[in-house]
């Protein structure tokens, strides 16, 4: 799933300065699961904004901060459902990932759509309260050759032929809190009895399949109407 994290409240408050009617929109998909921008978090943020504005003496009859949550912000049909609420607001604070914010910006022309989250990565909850990055979405998966552990997302230098000289006691040179991805790959390949496969050089990567080539598209001819 996509993992995100709420921006600092101070930054959000600066963003919405000058607007009177704010609609906080949660998203019921990835960011609900990672507890960054679901229904609960939308309610909390709206409440915090109301109280912050109250402290500044900004609450009054013309001021309104309300919240709503859609199933998925990155699909037109779900956004359709909130068009009236959006129309009634001065600015929308999206608690979706970057895709959600942009989908709303395209759907609601002429409306200010602001991001309340920082979208971080594709990953999973390691345990309750801890999420880690697993996939960099590079567009050209190498997991078959690295024992199911991604060096692009998990090595600090995205090395295809690691580990570098900074790997010690299973940790990355960058921090003792970071596992060396290549140590993990080595251990895994060893347990799979496939160590000899690491002896071959992986060739330079085709980064044109990564985001560097502009926004990427996936096309399924059989599904296009």
């Amino acid at each position: 799933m996509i993992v995100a994290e709420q921006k600092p409240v101070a930054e959000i408050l600066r963003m919405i300065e000058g607007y009177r009617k704010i609609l906080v929109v949660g998203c019921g998909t990835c960011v609900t699961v990672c507890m960054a921008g679901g229904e609960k978090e939308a309610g909390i943020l709206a409440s915090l904004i109301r109280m912050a504005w109250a402290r500044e003496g900004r609450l009054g009859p013309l001021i309104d901060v309300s919240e709503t949550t859609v199933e998925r912000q990155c699909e037109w049909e779900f956004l359709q459902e909130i068009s009236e609420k959006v129309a009634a607001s001065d600015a929308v604070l999206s608690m979706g990932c970057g895709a959600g914010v942009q989908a709303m910006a395209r759907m609601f022309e002429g409306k200010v759509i602001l991001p309340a989250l920082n979208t971080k990565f594709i990953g999973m909850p390691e345990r309750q309260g801890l999420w880690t990055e697993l996939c960099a979405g590079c567009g050209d998966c190498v997991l078959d050759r690295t024992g199911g552990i991604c060096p692009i997302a998990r090595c600090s230098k995205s090395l295809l032929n690691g580990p570098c000289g900074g790997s010690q006691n299973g940790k990355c040179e960058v921090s003792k809190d970071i596992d060396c991805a290549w140590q993990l790959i080595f251990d895994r390949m060893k347990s799979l009895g496939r160590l000899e496969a690491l002896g071959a050089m992986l060739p330079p990567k085709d980064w044109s399949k990564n985001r560097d080539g502009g926004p990427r598209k996936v096309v399924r001819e059989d599904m296009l109407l």
Partner: protein
Amino acid sequence: MPKIVAFACEHSAYEAATAALERKTGTAVSGENPRFPIVEVEILKVPCTGRVEVIDILKALEGGAGIVVLLGCFEEACHYLTGNVRAKKRVGYVRRIIQDIGLEENRVQFFSLAPDMDARFSGIIEELSKQVVNMGPGPVTRIRDQTTKEQAQAAQAR
């Protein structure tokens, strides 16, 4: 009037509160507050403090509470094993985020109680009453007071 909203666990704190009321050792369960008549206390019975969500605490503040307090069981005594631990962490989280908007962290607190601790219950309410008087009303009440004043001024002007 400054207000305290207390979420009290029915397995411990709520019983202590009821006993305090019966024995008249201190505050009342709801409304009156004989030891501190200038502070309103609202006590809400909950099945476990772990069931109190962040938004419930914020809504209480928004609703005019000067202090919101969660009164739960002692660490090992939770009826649902870890509900009170979760509640404590959640209170810590709310204290942090309300500081982000400039509110005092002590507007949200947690205390542990056993069912027979009516004296401790009264003591806590008394202490919080002093604090809430010192801190003044919560954010929303403050603005309501101001709006009322403004409205009064506007009415006078008319």
